Structures are given as structure tokens and as C-alpha cells.
């Protein structure tokens, strides 16, 4: 449905989107993830035909967004960030205006507006002036607007930004429902958002693609951050052995499962106590290096006369992965954010 190919967007000398390529297939609900100022809104604005691109090609439903802009715009429903609406109009009036603007034939307009209001769950405020609506309702009116011409593709820019948890849940439910009939591309900087509603995710940072795939694929990219081991034996001995292993930066006691008892000391090393220890790798290691270091650590413990009861990798959380993937310095991100605001 969407194919973005080597997209570049510059604002003056600032590069907002840098050689970005990704695809969204029919029927997918794709999350477009990135920290604030990563170029998400800029990319979505280009896809929706609001902004021009510097180089590259963007196709929506097979139509080139610069050369066949009308056809492309007709195929997508776009909900801008912050959902700008005309405050003086009533909800139904506004949607009727949007339907006419989006060339819904006259005879079908009433049905189209009714359907969109039902899908976005705003029927109860059909005759309320938009300026009087709460943020949650405004957001859903924006959704109804994107839906009113029943486009095959929906592009939603931060659909849950600024909502309270109940409203977020409502909007997510609406999006999940929409995902059954429409292809959806939604941007967010909240990870749980993606987990809740998306089948696939595209992650960008500083205008560049950093990862793309299903949530499971992405989760597999989580690197082990360290090692958990449960050992029987002298605590100090175990810690000093672990600290001596090449590749381990820190080793610390997580908890002591059983205290040493004076009755059963067999030797200096095995005092009968059991400890859960946590080690972290000294630097970013790749998968084979972490396996190797794990083996080294276990071998060192065993040869020192300690007994290993458990060993498991310490996985980083999805949030940590997100941070690791995007890793933008906040100053840079702020710069870009101000930039794209100035340009709009």
C-alpha cells in the first residue's frame, strides 16, 4: 500500500529524513516508532501529500505522491498530529464537509458520515460544536474524518498523544477494529502503543531507518545484557572469580538463598551458602561473544571449586532495546523537532 524508497527531506541544511526506505503491505497495521523529532511526522506528512520531498519516491496504492498526487491523496485518510479541526462547526457538519471535499458522491454522503461516526464512536456528539468537545472526542472526530471517504489506507500521526489512559484505551480499540478493514500506518513514540495495536513496526531515529519487523522479530534482537547465576559456595570467592573473567564488567549479589552454616563447612570455598549473582557485560557484545563469555564465566566458577545451580541470560527490556536502537542524543532530537515545527 505504501512504498517509501530512499526518501530524503531537507529543511535548508537540516536533514529531517535521511535515505529512508520501507514498505507497508495491504492489511497490515504498522507502527511507525521513533523518539520525538526523529522525522516521523515529516515522513507521514510527505506520505499524505502535505509536504514535498527532496529526493526519493513515495508511492501510495501504486500512485506516485508527487506525480499522481490526486490519486494518491484520494486513497488515504490522514489524521494529522494534534488533530486540527474547525472549532465553529458541528461534528456532523464538519464530516459532511470533509466527505464532499474528499469527493464522496452526493447520494452516499449521509451514509458515509453515519458509518464514519459509528466506526469512530462519535455518534453521540454528532450535533455538538467541535470547539466544545473534549480532547478524546476530538481525536475520534479526527479518526472519523480520516475514515469518511472509506479509504483503503489510514495514516495516523500520534493518534493517542495527550489522552488520558481511558481515552487511550478507547482509541486503541477503535484502531484495532479499523485494522480489520483498512491498512493502517500509525506513528507513536510509545512502545506499548505498538505492542497493543500493531502487527509490524518500523523504527526510525534521526531520520534513518534503524529496525523493521514484527514485534517478535524485534524482541529477538534484544541482546543479553548480562548473566544470572546461582552458585553454592563462598560469596567473595565467587564474585572475585566472576570479576576476573574477560568481558564481565560488574558482578554483584542479587540475593542470598541460604546462609552459610558452621556445621557443614567442607572447605574454604564451599561453605554451604547459596547466592544468586548478577553480572553485566563490560561492553556491547554481539550474540556469539556473549555466549562465549557465559561459557568462560561458568568454566571459571567450576574450576574454582564452586557449584553452579542455575545460569540464565539477563535480557534487556523492550524499552531498553528501543533506547539502544534509537539512541539519539536529546539535543539533536530537540533541534529537529523545532525545525519541523518551524517548517510547517
Amino acid at each position, binding site marked *: 500500500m505504501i512504498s517509501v524508497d530512499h526518501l530524503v527531506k531537507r529543511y535548508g541544511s537540516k536533514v529531517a529524513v535521511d535515505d529512508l526506505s520501507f514498505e507497508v503491505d495491504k492489511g497490515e497495521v504498522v507502527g511507525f516508532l521513533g523518539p520525538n523529532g526523529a522525522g516521523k511526522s515529516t515522513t507521514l506528512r510527505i506520505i499524505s501529500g502535505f509536504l514535498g520531498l527532496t529526493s526519493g519516491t513515495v508511492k501510495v496504492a501504486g500512485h506516485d505522491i508527487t506525480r499522481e498526487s490526486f490519486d494518491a491523496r484520494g486513497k488515504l485518510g490522514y489524521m494529522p498530529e494534534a488533530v486540527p*479541526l474547525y472549532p465553529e462547526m458541528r461534528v456532523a457538519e464538519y464530516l459532511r464537509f*470533509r466527505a464532499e471535499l474528499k469527493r464522496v458522491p452526493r447520494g452516499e454522503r449521509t451514509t458515509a458520515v453515519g458509518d464514519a461516526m459509528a466506526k469512530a464512536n462519535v455518534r453521540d456528539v454528532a450535533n455538538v460544536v467541535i470547539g466544545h468537545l473534549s480532547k478524546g472526542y476530538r481525536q475520534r472526530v479526527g479518526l472519523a474524518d480520516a475514515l469518511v471517504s472509506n479509504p483503503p489506507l489510514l495514516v495516523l500521526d500520534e493518534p493517542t498523544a495527550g489522552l488520558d489512559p481511558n481515552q487511550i484505551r478507547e482509541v486503541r480499540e477503535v484502531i484495532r477494529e479499523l485494522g480489520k478493514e483498512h491498512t493502517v500506518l500509525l506513528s507513536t513514540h510509545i512502545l506499548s502503543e505498538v505492542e497493543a495495536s500493531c502487527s509490524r513496526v518500523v523504527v526510525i531515529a534521526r531520520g534513518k531507518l534503524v529496525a523493521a519487523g514484527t514485534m517478535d522479530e524485534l524482541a529477538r534482537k534484544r541482546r543479553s545484557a548480562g548473566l544470572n547465576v546461582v552458585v553454592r559456595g563462598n560469596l567473595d570467592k565467587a564474585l572475585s572469580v566472576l570479576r576476573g573473567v574477560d568481558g564481565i564488567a560488574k558482578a554483584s549479589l542479587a540475593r542470598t538463598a541460604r546462609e552459610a552454616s558452621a556445621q557443614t563447612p567442607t572447605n574454604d570455598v564451599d561453605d554451604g551458602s547459596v547466592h544468586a549473582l548478577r553480572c553485566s557485560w563490560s561492553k556491547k557484545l554481539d550474540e556469539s561473544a556473549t555466549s562465549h563469555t557465559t561459557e568462560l564465566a561458568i568454566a571459571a566458577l567450576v574450576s574454582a571449586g564452586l557449584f553452579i545451580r542455575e545460569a540464565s541470560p539477563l535480557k534487556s527490556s523492550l524499552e531498553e532495546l528501543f533506547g539502544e536502537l534509537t539512541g539519539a542524543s536529546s539535543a539533536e532530537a530537540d533541534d529537529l523537532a523545532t525545525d519541523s515545527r518551524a517548517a510547517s
Partner: protein
Amino acid sequence: MTSFWPIYKRELFAFFVTPLAWVLITVFLLVQGMHFFLLVDHFSNIGQQVSDQTPLQAFFGNTVLLYLVLFLLVPPMTMRLFAEERRSGTIESLMTAPVSSAGVVLAKYAAVLTTYVAMWAPTALYLVILRQTGEIDWHVAASAYLGVLLVGGGYLSLGLLTSAITKSQFLALVLTALVILVLFILGIGEFVTREGTLMHDVCAHVSVWAHMNDFASGVVDSRRLVFYGSLIVLPLFVTVRAVDAWRWG
């Protein structure tokens, strides 16, 4: 061009659902009503004395009230057309619908021109009143209203342009007022520059004052038509280009 009608209707709706249009029309009709009253009073007092102009001519030409009113009313009419949409961001949903820039610009212009015509429409009653007491030269009335339409159309077109080049309604208001003022002052230049100089010719050509005097006495000069035609079309054209230019900003 299918985007013309919905935008035109929405703009008119936006004008008349907010108090702005009603306030402007009320102020306009108060000023014009007062003007008309004073004129009629004046003409009835001079009685049978021979006068070189009729009330109609005096109402449309040789008066500063027409320009004063346009100077005060046109900027607030046009200021919000684009500036408001850009500030609130609604321009984004507007331009991502399958609409053409030209369609959007023309629809907005047509809507504000319609409001302008609606503003003047009640003054036709003055003709009906004058008709009670004497003859009316309908050709003069027609050419006077044509003049009003052209002058106002040019000002509104300039106002639309300034609204498109800034995000601030206030700045659009000030810029439009400034442009109208400069045009008027250039017109005064006709009386202060020496005849035969280039400056004099330029001033005479752009003098709204002289134009309206012509129109008010039934003279429809093709130079005036060309001048106002360009004053309407050029800003509209630049506005379309400005709207296109945002997306490359």
C-alpha cells in the same frame, strides 16, 4: 475544481457563524447610512440651485468615506482566510484532501467576495429611496457599483495574498491595511506631483480616487478595467504559488 464548492460553502459558513461578518456589515451599513443621510440632507437644502453632480455621484465618487470604510473593513475580512488555517493546522487536513491549490484559493476568494457583495447589497435601497424624489440614471448606478466591485475585489485579492504569506492574522491585517493605504497615497500623488513627470502618470494611473470618480459619473474606461483586472488576478496567482510553496518550506 470539484473542491471549489465545499470550501466556498464552508468559508461562507465560517464568516456568518462567527460574529465578525455581522459586526463588519453593521459598521459598514451604519457609516454608509450616515453618509447617505448627510448627502440627501445637503442636496435637499441647496434646493433648486444648479449642482454639477447628483446624489448618486456624490455617494460613490468625490468622497473619502468609501476608501475609509474599505480601509477599515477589508483587512479584517481577509486576515483569517489562510493565516488562521495555518496557525491552527487545519491547512494540513485541507491540503491532504484531494484538492488543488487553485481550487482552494479561488473558493476562499469567491467566499470573501460574496460577503463583500452581501455587505453592499442593502445600499441598493438608497437608490429606491432616491427614486421616490427624482430620476436615477441607471447606467451611472451600474457603473458605480461596478467600480465598487472592482476596487473591493482588488483589495480583497491583496488581502488574501497577505493572509497566505503569514501565519499571524494580525500581521495579515496590518499588511493589507498598509497596502491599501499605499495605493491610496499614491493616488494623492496625482495632485502633488508636477504634470508631465513619470511619477505623475504612475500616480494618476493607480489613483483609486480618480477611478471611482469616473465610475461614479458613468465612465467605464478600459484602462481601469485592465488595472483592476490585474489587481485581482495577480495577487490570486501569487497566492496559488505561495500555497504550493509551503510544502517545499
